[in-house]
């Protein structure tokens, strides 16, 4: 089947990957990638903004045909949707107020308040590894940062790049720092972020895989990456 | 002999087990003013309401200008009219004036009068207004044409109701105790209008407790008792020389 028109679901509250501007438009790394891929496929693309915890149901419900929202490829998700190959891979990390101790043991984390975005890989990771911690689930990462600033949380866990941009680079961000190592255990975090697609649409997966290779090859990817990051967000091939 | 404007033949009506009308015959020719008398509960209102099918008769025929209102039997409700269209058409030829006026309270006096001509008979609005104003003039309420029913006295409301009835140029006007909801001081103004109508030669069926009206204005009086016509005739005959014991008793208590 030809894909002349593709509707792409994006989040809009996860800088620098996607972010809603004051005028209501959406910008960010994911958005630029989406547009580059569409240009490569010569398809007409529409971006549809959707809150994170409804984003997979919305794809299944055919609100859009693909999700480009820094979604990690995990086994759990693969039960529901198909993924393209990864288009980026950024480890998750904890962030806390400067000087707060951190140990990745269950005993240490007991009773600690950890904020995550609902339905993310981080959500699962903490639920599985630190069941005795007080896990607080938010609709968006921004809300979790607000509560971290307000001292309602001890830690927030999110994509390291998202934390860097959405929290550390903002006013007052100098009070916070990453704690603990980069986390990228495939058991929870999968194999990088891919584009999620309904399982039936295998042809679209193939076409997008080709397109990803194409923009990697022709340098478009690097241009976009450099706009937002000073490091390689793709990781190993 | 001419076709009677209204004829009722062997009309029966029951509510559940309660037989209210047990075979009523009645003929009204053009220009007849028929008064219907009877004790409370004798079925006067029911008779009138059967004529324009506000109640469905259990059996019997009703003919308006010789046209039979066709009925068919129905599982749930006994008999029902065969064609709603016919019933609606006939109803619009029979204007009813209610005891409690029933003016439409959301419409002004003028709007009440033009409502049926415009929306049922399809008279152009302008024309209807001209006529309605003349009718209101006639019942002495032209000045109140923009009032709402709630702002009028009972007698005024009933006069508007009469104008509303006249506006459809009915074959027969049906009056159900048009003055009994009025304070005694207001009865006169309504009766005066009705006397005028009678003089004009309107065909009227009037349920009333006003003996003076029945005697002086109508040319025929019917006395209902236990669902049957117990006595009928010209008023000058039956009031002076009643043949039924019941009727004698009735007029003696009312006077």
């Amino acid at each position, binding site marked *: 089947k030809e894909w002349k028109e593709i509707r792409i679901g994006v989040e809009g*509250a996860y800088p620098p990957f996607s972010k809603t501007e004051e005028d209501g438009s959406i910008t960010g790394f994911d958005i630029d990638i989406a547009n580059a891929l569409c240009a490569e496929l010569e398809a007409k693309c529409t971006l549809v903004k*959707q809150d994170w915890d409804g984003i997979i149901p919305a794809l299944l*419900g*055919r*609100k859009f045909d693909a999700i480009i929202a820094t979604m990690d490829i995990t086994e759990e998700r693969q039960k529901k949707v198909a993924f393209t190959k990864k288009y980026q891979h950024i480890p998750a990390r904890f962030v806390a107020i400067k000087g707060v101790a951190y140990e990745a043991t269950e005993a240490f984390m007991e009773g600690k308040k950890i904020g995550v975005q609902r339905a993310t890989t981080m959500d699962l990771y903490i639920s599985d590894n630190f069941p005795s911690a007080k896990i607080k689930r938010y609709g968006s990462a921004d809300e979790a940062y*607000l509560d971290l600033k307000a001292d309602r949380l001890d830690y927030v866990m999110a994509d390291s790049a998202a934390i860097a941009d959405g929290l550390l680079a*903002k006013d007052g961000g100098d009070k916070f720092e990453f704690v603990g190592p980069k986390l990228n255990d495939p058991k929870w975090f999968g194999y990088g972020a891919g584009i999620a697609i309904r399982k039936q649409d295998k042809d679209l997966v193939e076409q997008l895989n080709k397109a990803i290779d194409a923009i990697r090859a022709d340098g478009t990817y690097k241009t976009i990456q450099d706009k937002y990051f000073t490091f390689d967000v793709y990781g190993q091939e | 002999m001419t076709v009677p404007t209204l004829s009722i033949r062997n009309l029966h009506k029951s509510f559940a087990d309660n037989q209210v009308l047990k075979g009523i015959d009645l003929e009204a020719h053009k220009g007849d003013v028929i008064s219907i008398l009877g004790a409370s509960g004798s079925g006067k209102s029911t008779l009138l309401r059967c004529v324009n099918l506000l109640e469905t008769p259990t059996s019997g025929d009703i003919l308006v200008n010789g046209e039979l209102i066709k009925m068919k039997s129905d599982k749930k409700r006994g008999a029902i009219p065969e064609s*709603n269209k016919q019933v609606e058409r006939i109803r619009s*030829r029979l204007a009813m004036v209610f005891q409690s006026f029933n003016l439409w309270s959301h419409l002004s006096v003028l709007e009440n009068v033009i409502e049926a001509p415009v929306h049922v008979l399809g008279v152009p609005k302008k024309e209807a207004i001209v006529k309605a104003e003349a009718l209101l003039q006639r019942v002495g309420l032209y000045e109140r044409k923009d*009032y709402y029913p709630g702002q009028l006295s009972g007698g005024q409301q009933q006069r508007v109701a009469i104008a509303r009835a006249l506006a459809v140029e009915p074959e027969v006007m049906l009056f159900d105790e048009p003055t009994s909801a009025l304070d005694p001081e207001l009865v006169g103004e309504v009766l005066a209008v009705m006397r005028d109508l009678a003089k004009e030669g309107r065909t009227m069926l009037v349920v009333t407790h006003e003996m003076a009206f029945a005697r002086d204005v109508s040319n025929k009086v019917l006395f209902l008792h236990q669902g049957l016509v117990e006595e009928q005739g010209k008023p000058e005959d039956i009031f002076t020389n009643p043949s039924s014991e019941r009727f004698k008793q009735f007029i003696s208590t009312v006077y």
Partner: protein
Amino acid sequence: MFSLYGYQDIFLEGAWLTLQVALLSLVLSVALGLLAALAKLSHSTILTSIATLYTTIIRGIPDLILMLLIFFGGQLLINDMSYNLNEWLNETITGYYPNHEWTAYLPEYIDISPYFAGIVTIGFIFGAYMAETFRGAILSVDKGQLEAATAYGMNKYKRFFRVMFPQMMRHALPGLGNNWLVLLKTTALVSIIGLQDMVKIAGDASGSTQKPFTFYLVVALIFLFYTAVSTTALKWAERKYSIQTR
């Protein structure tokens, strides 16, 4: 002019969107409410039970749950259905004509936008409350008024639209007004299903400016303004349409 860290323009848009959602749901809920009220008062047992089920379920389940159910669940249900039907059609046809090309006989997706889902859900919910209001209003219309309409030969549609409806609205107005005020505030929930109304914008804005109090207070004040305007208008309407008496 007030300034909200650059957000004032889309804030105003959000305020306008809130009002749109509220007004459109109002229209829908009035229509649904009327239908349900008429169904409840009808002689048909089927209609009566459907309407009763409808009003009962709505009374039992929170608005937010219904909204999430319709927005996520409803979408899934409708589109799955239409997709499966499409597949089935195609397969059957391919069975007969092997070289048949895949075609979408039904729309491949029906997009329930949050805008639409919000309006539908709120309209649906308040339809149930409106039904009660209208039922009461219909019952309080004087029987004689309708009887007069019948006696003058109006058919049942004319009876409804020319007499019943204008008269019942007068009785329904206070209840309608109350429902409107509640409905207006319920629109805030559409932000949870992702519509860019002013609550959602306030949320986004407080995320990036770290000034949640300022933004949410402005939202509250705008709602208070809407409420105040509505109350005034309602008072005026009630006076205007109250039964005219001396």
